[in-house]
């Protein structure tokens, strides 16, 4: 009953899923950190931008954002992110959409981490003459990241599963292949179970490893 599986490149599809997840994770970690820095910073304009961004983006369905990158950016505005083929372009647009969306959640996870750092830490850092960005980089964020490992793990797991939305614009990742296989084969339950198992294989170790890391790096007070 498993014969038909050899006709499909399941591992290849999951590899695309992993690539989507990793690239988006790195991108949204960077952009989310910058957003968090804006939200706690002293410049009102940046604070306002950060707040507006988070409240706007996290309330828009991911499907809408992903479809907009393809229909709006790619087809209407011809923004292809330097890709010469449409499947490469779709992949990059999907990563962009996932970064735009996920960074709002990274920002908030980090901000909750920043709130666990006692005010005295930043005061002591300012008192020895560190600038705002040094206070953030050298004292506050290193401690904030350590206590935000738990919430950030949740964001990463959600991101991994959210990559399935990229199927909406034709990125050949796991969910798209699953849809194709379900249409072609009369094995609905088996195929669903295989893909569900595949995602658990990606996310379960992520949660366990990062849970261990979170305990390991926790700041003792």
């Amino acid at each position: 009953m498993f014969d038909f599986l050899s006709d499909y490149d399941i591992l290849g599809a999951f590899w695309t899923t992993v690539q989507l997840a990793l690239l988006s994770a790195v991108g949204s970690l960077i952009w989310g950190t910058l957003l968090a820095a804006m939200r706690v910073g002293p410049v009102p304009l940046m604070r306002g931008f950060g707040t507006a961004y988070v409240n706007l983006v996290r309330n828009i369905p991911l499907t809408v954002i992903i479809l907009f990158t393809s229909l709006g950016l790619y087809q209407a505005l011809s923004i292809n992110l330097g890709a010469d083929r449409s499947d490469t372009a779709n992949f990059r647009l999907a990563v962009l959409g996932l970064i735009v969306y996920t960074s709002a959640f990274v920002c908030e996870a980090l901000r909750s981490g920043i709130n666990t750092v006692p005010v005295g830490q930043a005061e002591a850092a300012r008192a020895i003459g560190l600038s705002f960005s040094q206070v953030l980089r050298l004292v506050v964020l290193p401690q904030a990241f350590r206590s935000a490992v738990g919430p950030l793990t949740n964001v990463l797991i959600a991101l991994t599963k959210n990559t399935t939305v990229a199927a909406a614009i034709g990125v050949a990742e796991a969910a798209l292949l699953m849809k194709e296989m379900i249409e072609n084969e009369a094995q609905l339950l088996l195929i669903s179970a295989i893909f569900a198992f595949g995602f658990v294989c990606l996310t379960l170790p992520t949660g366990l490893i990062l849970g261990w890391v979170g305990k390991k790096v926790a700041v003792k007070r």
Partner: protein
Amino acid sequence: MTEVSVAKEDVAATGELVVLKSVNKHFGALHVLQDIDLTIARGEVVVVIGPSGSGKSTLCRTINRLETIDSGSIAIDGKPLPAEGRELARLRADVGMVFQSFNLFAHKTVLENVMLGQIKVRKKDKSAAEERARALLDRVGVAAQAEKYPAQLSGGQQQRVAIARALAMEPKVMLFDEPTSALDPEMINEVLEVMQQLARDGMTMIVVTHEMGFARSAANRVVFMADGRIVEEAAPDQFFSNPRSDRAKDFLSKILHH
């Protein structure tokens, strides 16, 4: 303990180092600092005492602008306190601060705590910073704890590290905001001894404290605050034996005789 120079050479010169002129501050409706005028000379040790809520901690925190003021002026070494930014950071590096709750950087070792400002603000190279950090830790008697994290130290040890961290910046003046108030009684003396030594070495110090013994033995001048005002300023002998104001007499009668 080894001798380490802690103050810039110009400390020996006379003159006004910290000048506050008619400083006012409100917390909402509460007028916490009311027309404060205070001048601290180079090398002087000024102890600020007073009942809780009298504004003495706030006063201490305004001097390096951890609290902003509503009106009046504050000048350090002839320069008015700049607004937030690079200038202010540069000035803060010259003003050492020791907090009630120590506030050592929790993710860094004791040694790294004392090195951080030297490297990032004073731009010293790592080996010079480490050498000075170890000498200062030795001076405050916690050299053996250099590789530990703050949470592994007792309160008294943490506070002595915090003093070393402030001294590492070679400050012109040191602010102490109730440095012994969060300590177990048995650890208070080890911190006070370090502060006494510092006072003897000629460091300019502004100390907010409830330790009357320290005020008597180390202070050049006692400033008594109540309800946001400076009620009385006097030499410690005169203040403790013969306070002029009723408010100070009342305060001293409650804390001294039992």
